[in-house]
């Protein structure tokens, strides 16, 4: 292909955007609407995933140390735990601190236990966080076997349920987002297909006056690209502005421990990139797929 022909294809693809006015509009608006949907869900899902990660990270192993252990034994245990694989942090919490915490946790009821401060019935505790939350159970089981460990707590029952809950939520999220992506692909390419089928006479005529398949395909390829890009402008703008404002004004007012949002700065750019790529790829794909069947005859 000569360079001037490539130029011609670019020129032609722009002209076609105008020539097929309402069809362009219909395709672009289908892309716009679908990508907005995909974008909103991506934002929600990625943030939920982030929050789920926070929730999981909060899980810790509490190793209660037998009163029989002396300071050296305790230090030895601490060292041994630190040296295990997959450990993130190991914090020592002496029994006095444990009691204070307990009393604080119980609130008003706790006051009743104040007398115990003289004769603390609790144990010293190592609080361990693992690098991967899923390791918690394995680590707990191992520590249980150590000397001078009276008992190991990691919210048995609770942690398993939490993990399976977070997993269900994540899987539903993934299924939804993948389903949504396929839906978007289908809907966009369906729309593009109809507009191109409406132009099948045009393609037929082009072939009749000697245009090769590639010659016909090029402007359609470029048109698909422009459609995709044009269609992703509004969703990108909308989601960026909304997310930026939510992150800036709404997020700080939500005071739950686990709920924090992905920082706007790289996230908006990531989402924008994802959306424009999806738009362009589906636009091109839809366009080429639709032209294809009219090039066979």
């Amino acid at each position: 292909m000569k360079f001037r022909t490539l130029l011609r294809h670019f020129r032609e693809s722009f002209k076609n955007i105008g020539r097929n006015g309402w069809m362009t509009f219909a395709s672009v608006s289908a892309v716009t609407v679908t990508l907005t949907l995909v974008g909103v869900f991506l934002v929600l899902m990625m943030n939920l995933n982030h929050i789920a990660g926070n929730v999981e990270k909060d899980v810790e192993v509490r190793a209660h140390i037998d009163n029989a252990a002396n300071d050296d034994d305790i230090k030895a245990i601490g060292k041994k735990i630190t040296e295990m694989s997959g450990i993130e942090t190991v914090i020592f919490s002496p029994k006095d601190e444990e009691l204070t915490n307990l009393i604080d946790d119980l609130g008003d009821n706790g006051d009743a236990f104040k007398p115990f401060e003289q004769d603390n019935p609790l144990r010293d505790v190592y609080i361990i966080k693992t690098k991967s939350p899923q390791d918690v159970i394995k680590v707990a089981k191992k520590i249980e076997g150590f000397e001078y460990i009276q008992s190991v707590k990691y919210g048995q029952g609770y942690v398993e349920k939490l993990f399976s809950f977070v997993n269900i939520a994540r899987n539903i999220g993934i299924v939804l987002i993948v389903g949504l992506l396929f839906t978007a692909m289908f809907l966009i390419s369906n729309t593009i297909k109809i507009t191109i089928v409406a132009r099948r006479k045009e393609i037929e005529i082009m072939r009749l006056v000697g245009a090769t398949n590639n010659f016909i395909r090029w402007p359609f390829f470029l048109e698909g690209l422009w459609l995709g890009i044009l269609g992703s402008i509004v969703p990108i703008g909308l989601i960026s502005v909304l997310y930026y404002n939510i992150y800036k004004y709404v997020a700080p007012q939500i005071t739950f421990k686990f709920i924090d949002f992905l920082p706007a700065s790289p996230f908006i750019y990531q989402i924008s990139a994802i959306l424009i790529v999806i738009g362009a790829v589906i636009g091109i794909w839809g366009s080429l797929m639709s032209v294809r069947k009219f090039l066979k005859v």
Partner: protein
Amino acid sequence: MIEMIDVKKTYPNGVIAINGLNVKIKPGEFVYVVGPSGAGKSTFIKMMYREEKPTSGNILVNGVSLPSIRNSKVPLFRRNIGMVFQDFKLLQTFTVYENVAFAMEVIEKEPEEIKKRVMEVLDLVGIKHKARMLPSELSGGEQQRVAIARSIVNDPKVVIADEPTGNLDPETSWEIMNIFEEINNRGTTLVMATHNRDIVNNIKRRVIAIESGKIVRDEHRGDYGYEI
């Protein structure tokens, strides 16, 4: 140049449009194809540029065997043929100028050459002043002339025209025929289906008469032949 051997064409709906046809057209010939409505003239012509494939038999055009040519090669083959379709087949979203220029862009001509040549042929058929209009803004005859302009813009070796004067008044028809005669004199083969008795009887050339998908007459300098 153009040769058909035992050609038959049955459309998918069972209509037999061409029923055993042999013909040979030499380079530089000027051939009228005549016959009643529905006789198979358009089908005969469509097979020459492979808009339709024959059901059986063989067709050779410029040495190319059309039934066996690969689909992707068809456009390249068509570049040597100028075609005027009975229903014009203009690109509706393209202007008159763009419609004619398209046939030149396809063979990657230089933009300056395209510009010059397109305006030249549009002038020839008398619609230069409508170059910027869309086909839907033209009268029937004007559209037909755009189709004619497109068919000759690349100086093809063969021009195949299906009732190129069906929508034209006699005067314009004669102008078009003058153009066709001129390009034929320059060596271009011309095949033309027509109902125009005046033209056939006045510009005497080879006449092929088709009836019910068969050649019933083939005369060197023939008459239109169907009397009123």
